[in-house]
């Protein structure tokens, strides 16, 4: 047995794990009968179907007829910078206010580009903060915490 299609294999494994996870989770809720279904019934069977189909995908990836597909490389650096800066923005928003957190979001996420320059990143940050002010706060009237809490209180 050889894993020929690595993409499909790992996708299948993921489906199996998630399917079983959802099905196990569903057992905590009341199942009920087919006529009077409890909240666990439908997700339980969906989970089972997902796991079964995922297993088929994985097995298919091991068959000798599968086309050889290697895994694509993950660029974790980009992922960490992008996801990290968005998450950080969420953490800081209520504390530092929209202007500073958006600026930080722009500046930090710019690090993910291979042609990063701090001047361009800072300029983009300023411009986007202005845009947020003009379009979202003034234009659409959305309500954000604007400035750091320790300054306003």
């Amino acid at each position: 047995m050889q894993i020929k299609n690595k993409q499909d294999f790992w996708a299948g494994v993921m489906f199996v794990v998630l399917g079983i996870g959802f099905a196990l989770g569903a057992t905590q809720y009341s199942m009920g009968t087919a006529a009077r279904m409890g909240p666990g019934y439908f997700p339980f069977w969906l989970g089972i179907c997902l796991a079964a189909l995922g297993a088929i995908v994985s097995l298919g990836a091991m068959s000798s007829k599968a086309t050889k597909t290697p895994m694509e490389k993950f660029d974790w650096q980009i992922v960490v910078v992008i996801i990290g800066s968005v998450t950080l923005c969420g953490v800081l928003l209520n504390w530092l206010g929209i202007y500073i957190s958006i600026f930080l979001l722009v500046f930090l996420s710019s690090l993910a580009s291979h042609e990063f320059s701090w001047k361009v990143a800072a300029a983009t940050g300023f411009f986007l903060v202005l845009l947020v002010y003009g379009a979202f706060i003034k234009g659409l009237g959305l309500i954000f915490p604007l400035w750091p809490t320790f300054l306003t209180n």
Partner: protein
Amino acid sequence: MELLEHLSLGFSVAFTAENLAYCLLGCILGTLIGVLPGIGPVPTIAMLLPITYVLPPVAGLIMLAGIYYGAQYGGSTTAILVALPGETSAVVTVLDGHQMARNGRAGAALAIAALGSFFAGCVATILLAGFAPPLAEVAFKFGPAEYFSLMVLGLIGAVVLASGSLPKAICMILLGLLLGMVGTDVNSGVARYDFGIPELQDGIDFAVVAMGVFGFSEIMTNLELRDQRINITGKVGSLYPNKQEFKEAWAPCVRGTALGSALGILPGGGAVLSSFASYTLEKKISKTPERFGKGHPAGLAGPESANNAAAQTSFIPLLTLGIPGNAVTALMIGAMTIHNIQPGPQVMTSHPELFWGLIASMWIGNLMLIVLNLPLVGLWIKLLKVPYRILFPAILVFCTIGVYSLNYNVFDIWMTAAFGLIGYVWAKLKCEGAPLLLGLVLGPMMEENFRRALLLARGDYTTFVTRPLSLSLLILAAALVVLVTLPAVKKKREETFVEED
């Protein structure tokens, strides 16, 4: 004529100053973002969706529809000028459209694409107005069992007609359905899969998933490509196609419209399939097939009309049955529910002003785009020159603000970030996000109908196959699956999608 009466109602709604303004705003915003390379209609709509929540329902949906066409028009502009398709259906536009641009006929190519799309849009709008009411009549006869089977057919059709691996796509649907289960169960009030987090009791917002999986993960995959800057065709040339080009373009345009309208009604990647199919058709019947791929107007006009017609007619199942056929219509369904409108056949009778207003505004939107786009080509070209390092932080900001404004809760920002990460892994595993989104939107509806059907049948599963309408829908779904797994069809399907790859 009842149809005329309806249409005049629609136009009276759409022609108010306010709705015209929102339609125009939607078209402009849609084009603006759609033109940006690498951003297709789905992330565009997902990003702008929260803005429309503050509007009244009719205006909100009109604006969304405008964004949709705008994004499509913008996408073809990018495809023609810089050979960077923002979405799969624009891949075909690149083939001949970009070649025309390189031959110095960029202006003509843009005009042909715009006029072809406009023609297709007009025809499809009339079809929509004509076909929707009788189809809704049929839908009124549907019980829960039929609805469940219809959703099965819709979901299966959506993946069968799209490209990519079938079993994986079905898995993504199931996963989407399961994600749709998260939140409070309407029947029992039990909070499912909430892990004790109060925010999860309201369920996972589809906009969060769409922005994470389509917006964030696309940014990350684009960044990996290291910004392959492309030289933009600077000279646009005459905006008017010459006689020869016009003569070669009009017939494919009509054929493309017919093909697209028919395929668009089917659930699934109507727009993608129809543009590929139209290209193949034009090449087959052409007397000079060797000119395709070298800037033949027919290779541009056909697919462009087809994909626009399909985009329009894909609203037929959405508005009459409440079943989304692709990711874009799934987002529309979500937007409707946000505005407290239950999508389905009753929309036409309970909210006629919304239904017909939307249809009328589709036509107006198409007209606006043609008036707007051709003169503004210079502006779009400037936009294309914005480097990605400035562009992607801006997208991040819009997405972040957008999800935050859904509930004014930072939890949604974290959820979007999490789905961005998951979406990145899915992109690497070649698992498509569109089926997931369909499943997510349909999940609660599907469970509800499944439960009700079995409740009515006292737990008898045969209810799905003993009711003739339900049975035929299920047979159709099964036939679709069998059909694509047949070796001959499978090969053909692969061929259609890799054509000229």
